[in-house]
C-alpha cells in the first residue's frame, strides 16, 4: 500500500520531465495536468483504503540518500490525513488547471514544476527520518520558488521570490537545527530513534521554539508571515491555490509531527506561546486583508488568519495534553485538523475563483471589477459558497471547525494554572473578533467583485470560464457544503490521529441521531448542520411559494432608485477602499497609522479633489526593516575580512581551531 503511494509520488516527480517536453508545444499542457489529476486520484484512493483498514502504521526503507541512514518512509494516521488533504485538493486543482492552465503565457515555466511540487509535499508527509524530511521540505520550497517566479517580467515577482527564498531558507535552517538537537549527540536520524529518547526540559523547549519558527514561517504565522502575501499572489492562480491551500498545511503537518509526535508534547508554558501567536495571527491577518484591494493578496492575508486559527487550536491541544486532559486535547486537535481540511478546500476554491476572474477580466484589482455574478454565474455561485464558508457561517464547513474550537475553549477553565487561565479567554475573544471581521471582509470582496455595477470595460465584457474550471469550483463548493452538513465524516476520520498522538479520541459521531455533532458526552452542546440546512431550504422555499401564490408573482424592472438621484457613472458606487473605511478608522488609525489626506482644489477651480489613504505595515516597518538594516550594517563591517592576505587567513583558521578545541575541552 505504501509502495503504491511511493510509486505515485515518483511518477508525479517524473511528470516534471514530461512538462519540459510538453512545454515546447505550448498549446497542449493538458497531458501534464491530466496525469497529475489521475495520480492524485490514485493517491486519494490509497489513502482512503489505508483509513478503511484502520490506519495501521506502514513502513518502508529505500536504499537511497545517505548510505548509513537510507530513506525511511512511514504511513500512519497523521500522514494519511494530510495526504488526503494534498491529494484531494491536488486532484481538484489539477482539474481546474486542465482548463485554466491552457491560458498560461509561458507554460514552460509552470509545467516542469507542477508535478514535483505535488510530489515534494507528499514526500514531506511520508518521510520518517530527519534527512529525507529536510530534503523533501527544501525541495518543496525550491520548486515553489520557481513557481513564484513564473511571471518573471514583473518586478513584484522578483521581490516576492527573493523574500520567499530568504525566509524559506531561514525556516529550513531552523528545522535543521531542531532535527540536530532532536537527534542528539549520538545522531540517530530516523524518527523511531528520535521518539525513544529522554530529553532535558531545556532541550525540549529549544526544539519546540525552533520547530515553531521553522514550520511557522512556512505556514505564514505572524510575525514570520511576510513572504506569504507577496509570494502566493505572484504565482499562477492554480499554483496559488496549492500554495495557500496545501503547502501551508504541510507546514502545519511539520509542526504537529515534530512537537506532538517526536517531542511528545511540551509543558504548559510553551503552549501558551502557540496560543498567543495563533490569536494574534488570526486578528492581524484579517485586518491586513481588510485593508487590501488586490483580490489575491486579500486571499493570501486570509491564509494568515486561518493559520492563526489552526495554530491556536494546536496550542490549546498542547496545553490540555500537558495538563493530562487527553480527551479535551483530542477535541482541540480535531478542531485544528478539521480546520486544516476546511481551509484547504475553501481557500483553494477562492484562489481558483480569483484565477477565473483574473482570466476573464485581466485584472485582480478589485477597484476595476464588479457585476461579475451576472456574467459568470457558476464562478459567482461557487465563490459565494467559499466566502460564506471562510466567514464561518453555518451551515458550511468553516463554522463547524470554529464551533469545535469554541467548545474546546469553553472547557479550558479546567486548566487552573495562572497564565493560561488569562490567555485562553483572551484568545477566545480574539478568535471571535477575527471571525466577525472575516465576514465583513468577504462582504467587501464579494460585493465589490461579483455584485454591484462593472467598474471597467473589461469587467463589463467578462465571459464565463471553461467547463473544467467550473466543474472544479463546483466540486470544491459542494465539498464545503457536504462537510458542513455531515461533519461527523471528518471527526470520525480524525479519531486514529488522536489515538496516535494523544491516546484519546472523540466518541464516534456518525452514529448520533440525525447525524448531529456532539463532541463531548459530558456537555449537552450539540450542532446539526443538516437540520439547519433543511430548515433554511424549507422555510425559504415555503415563503417563496406562499408569496408567489397569494401575493402575486409580478416584477418590474426599472431604473435605480437611490433616493431619487441615481448617477449612471459606475465610479459613484462604493469601492473596496471606501467599504473598508469605517473599519480602517476604527482599527487602522493606531495599528496601521492610517492617514487620509484630502486635497481640495481652490474655490471656483474645476479641478478634481483628491483623497489619499496612507497605510503603514507595522510588522514590516518595525521588525523586518530594522533587521535588514542590521544585517547590511554587519555585512559592511565584515566586508574587510573578504580581502585579506593568505597569512591572515591562516591565522584566522588557526584561531578558530583553537577556539573550538577550548570549547570542546570545556564541555567534557
Amino acid at each position, binding site marked *: 500500500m505504501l509502495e503504491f503511494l511511493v510509486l505515485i509520488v515518483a511518477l508525479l516527480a517524473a511528470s516534471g520531465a514530461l512538462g519540459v517536453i510538453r512545454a515546447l508545444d505550448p498549446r497542449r499542457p493538458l497531458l501534464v495536468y491530466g496525469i497529475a489529476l489521475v495520480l492524485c486520484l490514485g493517491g486519494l484512493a490509497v489513502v482512503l483504503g489505508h483509513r478503511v483498514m484502520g490506519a495501521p502504521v506502514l513502513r518502508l526503507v529505500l536504499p537511497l540518500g545517505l548510505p548509513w541512514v537510507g530513506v525511511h518512509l512511514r504511513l500512519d494516521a497523521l500522514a494519511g490525513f494530510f495526504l488526503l488533504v494534498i491529494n484531494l485538493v491536488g486532484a481538484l486543482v489539477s482539474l481546474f488547471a486542465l482548463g485554466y492552465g491552457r491560458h498560461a503565457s509561458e507554460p514552460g515555466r509552470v509545467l516542469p514544476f507542477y508535478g514535483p511540487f505535488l510530489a515534494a509535499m507528499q514526500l514531506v508527509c511520508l518521510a520518517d527520518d530527519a534527512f529525507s524530511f529536510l530534503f523533501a521540505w527544501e525541495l518543496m520550497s525550491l520548486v515553489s520558488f520557481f513557481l513564484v517566479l513564473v511571471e518573471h517580467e514583473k518586478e513584484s515577482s522578483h521581490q516576492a521570490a527573493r523574500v520567499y527564498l530568504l525566509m524559506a531558507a531561514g525556516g529550513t535552517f531552523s528545522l535543521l537545527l531542531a532535527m540536530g538537537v532532536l537527534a542528539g549527540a549520538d545522531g540517530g536520524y530516523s524518527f523511531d530513534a528520535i521518539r525513544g529518547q529522554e530529553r532535558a526540559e531545556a532541550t525540549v523547549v529549544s526544539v519546540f521554539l525552533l520547530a515553531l519558527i521553522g514550520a511557522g514561517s512556512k505556514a505564514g504565522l505572524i510575525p514570520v508571515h511576510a513572504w506569504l502575501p507577496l509570494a502566493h499572489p505572484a504565482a499562477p492562480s492554480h499554483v496559488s491555490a496549492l500554495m495557500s491551500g496545501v503547502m501551508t498545511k504541510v507546514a502545519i503537518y511539520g509542526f504537529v509531527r515534530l512537537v506532538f509526535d517526536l517531542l511528545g508534547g511540551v509543558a504548559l508554558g510553551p503552549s501558551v506561546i502557540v496560543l498567543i501567536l495563533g490569536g494574534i495571527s488570526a486578528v492581524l491577518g484579517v485586518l491586513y486583508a481588510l485593508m487590501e484591494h488586490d483580490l489575491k493578496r486579500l486571499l493570501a492575508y486570509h491564509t494568515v488568519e486561518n493559520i492563526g486559527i489552526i495554530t491556536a487550536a494546536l496550542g490549546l491541544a498542547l496545553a490540555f495534553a500537558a495538563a493530562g486532559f487527553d480527551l479535551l486535547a483530542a477535541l482541540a486537535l480535531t478542531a485544528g485538523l478539521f480546520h486544516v481540511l476546511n481551509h484547504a478546500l475553501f481557500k483553494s476554491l477562492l484562489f481558483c475563483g480569483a484565477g477565473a476572474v483574473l482570466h476573464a477580466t485581466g485584472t485582480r484589482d478589485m477597484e476595476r471589477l*464588479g*457585476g461579475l455574478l*451576472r456574467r459568470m454565474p457558476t464562478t459567482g455561485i461557487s465563490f459565494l459558497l467559499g466566502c*460564506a464558508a471562510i*466567514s*464561518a*457561517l453555518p451551515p458550511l464547513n468553516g463554522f463547524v471547525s470554529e464551533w469545535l474550537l*469554541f*467548545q474546546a475553549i*469553553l472547557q479550558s*477553565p479546567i486548566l487552573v494554572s495562572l497564565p493560561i*487561565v*488569562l490567555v*485562553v479567554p483572551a484568545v477566545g*475573544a480574539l478568535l*471571535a*473578533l477575527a*471571525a*466577525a471581521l472575516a*465576514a*465583513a471582509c468577504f*462582504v*467587501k470582496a464579494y*460585493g465589490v467583485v*461579483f*455584485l*454591484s*455595477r462593472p467598474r471597467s470595460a473589461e469587467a463589463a465584457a467578462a465571459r464565463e470560464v471553461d467547463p473544467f474550471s467550473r466543474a472544479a469550483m463546483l466540486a470544491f463548493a459542494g465539498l464545503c457544503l457536504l462537510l458542513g452538513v455531515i461533519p461527523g465524516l471528518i471527526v470520525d476520520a480524525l479519531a486514529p490521529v488522536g489515538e496516535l498522538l494523544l491516546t484519546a479520541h472523540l466518541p464516534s459521531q456518525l452514529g448520533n441521531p440525525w447525524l*448531529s455533532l*456532539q463532541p463531548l458526552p459530558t*456537555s*449537552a*452542546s*450539540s*450542532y*446539526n448542520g443538516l*437540520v439547519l440546512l433543511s*430548515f*433554511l431550504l424549507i*422555510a*425559504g422555499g415555503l*415563503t417563496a411559494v406562499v*408569496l408567489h401564490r*397569494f401575493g*402575486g408573482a*409580478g*416584477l418590474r*424592472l*426599472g*431604473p*435605480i*432608485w*437611490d433616493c431619487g438621484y441615481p448617477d449612471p457613472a459606475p465610479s459613484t*458606487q*462604493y469601492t473596496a477602499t471606501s*467599504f473598508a*473605511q*469605517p*473599519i480602517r*478608522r476604527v482599527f487602522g488609525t493606531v495599528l496601521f497609522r492610517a492617514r487620509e489626506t484630502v486635497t481640495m482644489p481652490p474655490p471656483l477651480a474645476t479641478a478634481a479633489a483628491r483623497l489619499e489613504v496612507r497605510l503603514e505595515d507595522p510588522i514590516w516597518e518595525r521588525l523586518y526593516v530594522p533587521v535588514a538594516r542590521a544585517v547590511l550594517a554587519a555585512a559592511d563591517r565584515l566586508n574587510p575580512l573578504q580581502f585579506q592576505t593568505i597569512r591572515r587567513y591562516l591565522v584566522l583558521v588557526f584561531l578558530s581551531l583553537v577556539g573550538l578545541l577550548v570549547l570542546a575541552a570545556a564541555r567534557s
Partner: protein
Amino acid sequence: MRLLLDLLAQGLQMTLVLAAAPLLVGWTRKLRARLLRRRGPDLVQPYRDLVRLLRKEPVIAHSASPYFRVAPYLVFASTWIAAALVPTYATGLMFHWATDLIAIVAFLGFARFALGLAGMDVGTAFGGIGSSREVMIASLAEPAMLLVVFTLALLAGSTQLSAIAEFLVREPVGLRVSLGLALVALLMVAIAENARIPVDNPTTHLELTMVHEAMVLEYSGRHLALIEAASALKLTAYFSLVACLFFPFGMVTSTSSPLLYPLGILAWMAKIAVLGAVLAVFETAVAKLRVFRVPEFLGGAFVLGFLGTLLLFVSRAL
C-alpha cells in the same frame, strides 16, 4: 403520536414568533409615540404595512443581479429559523439540539452577511454606505455577543440554550457579577444589532445617519416586506434570548406537562412586552450617537463580556 405532538409544539413556536414579531414592533412604536406625547399608529399597523407591501409589485433596478431577488428569502428564512430555535415558552422542544447559542449567533450573522451583500448589489452609494457601516457595527457586536455566550456557557457547562435555561431555573445561581456584566453586554449588543437608538435610527431617512435603512433602500414590494418582517423577527429573537437566559421563570421545562404551554406562552409574551417597553423608554431618553462613537459603545459591550468570561475563568463562584 409523541412525534406528532413534538412536531406540533415546534411548529407552534415557529408560528408564534412569526405572528408575534410585528405586534412587538407595533407595541414599541406605540409606546414611543405616547412617551413623545403623540397618539401613534395602531398596534396592528405593522401587519397592515406588511400586507400592503406584499400586494405591491416590486420594482427592481436594471443593474441588479439575480442574487438581489434571492437575498430577501435568505434573510427572512435564516432570521425566522434563528428566532424559532430560541426557546420562547418551553425548553427542550423537538429540535432544541440542532443549534446551540453559538450557532444561533452565527446564523444571525448569516442573515446579516446575506443582507450586506444585497446592499452592495445594485451599485449605489447609499447601499454601499449602509453595508459598510452595518458590517463595521457587526464586527464589533458579534464578538461581544460571543463573549456573552461564553460567560453563560461557562456557568451552565453547555452552549445548548435549553440546557442553559433549565440550569438557570434549577440551580440556585443567585445574583452574580458575571451574569450582570453579561446582561448589560447582551442588551447593548441587542440595541446595536437591531439598529435601534443610539446606534442607528429605524425611523430616519436622513442620508448621513442611516445604516440599516440605507442598505435596504432599493427594495420594494414583497421583498421589502420580507426584510421588514426579518427585522421584526430579529428583535423578537433577541428579546426571547434575553428572556430565556436572564428571566427564565415561567418557561415550561421538558419534564412538565404540555398542558402548561398556554401559561408559558403568556409568560413569554409578558416578558417581551416588558422588554419592549424598556426599549421604548430607553430610546426616548437617549440621543443617537455619531457613527464613529458607536465603536466606543460596542467596545464597552466587548469589555463587559470579556470581564464576565474572565471572572468565570478565574473563579466559578463569581
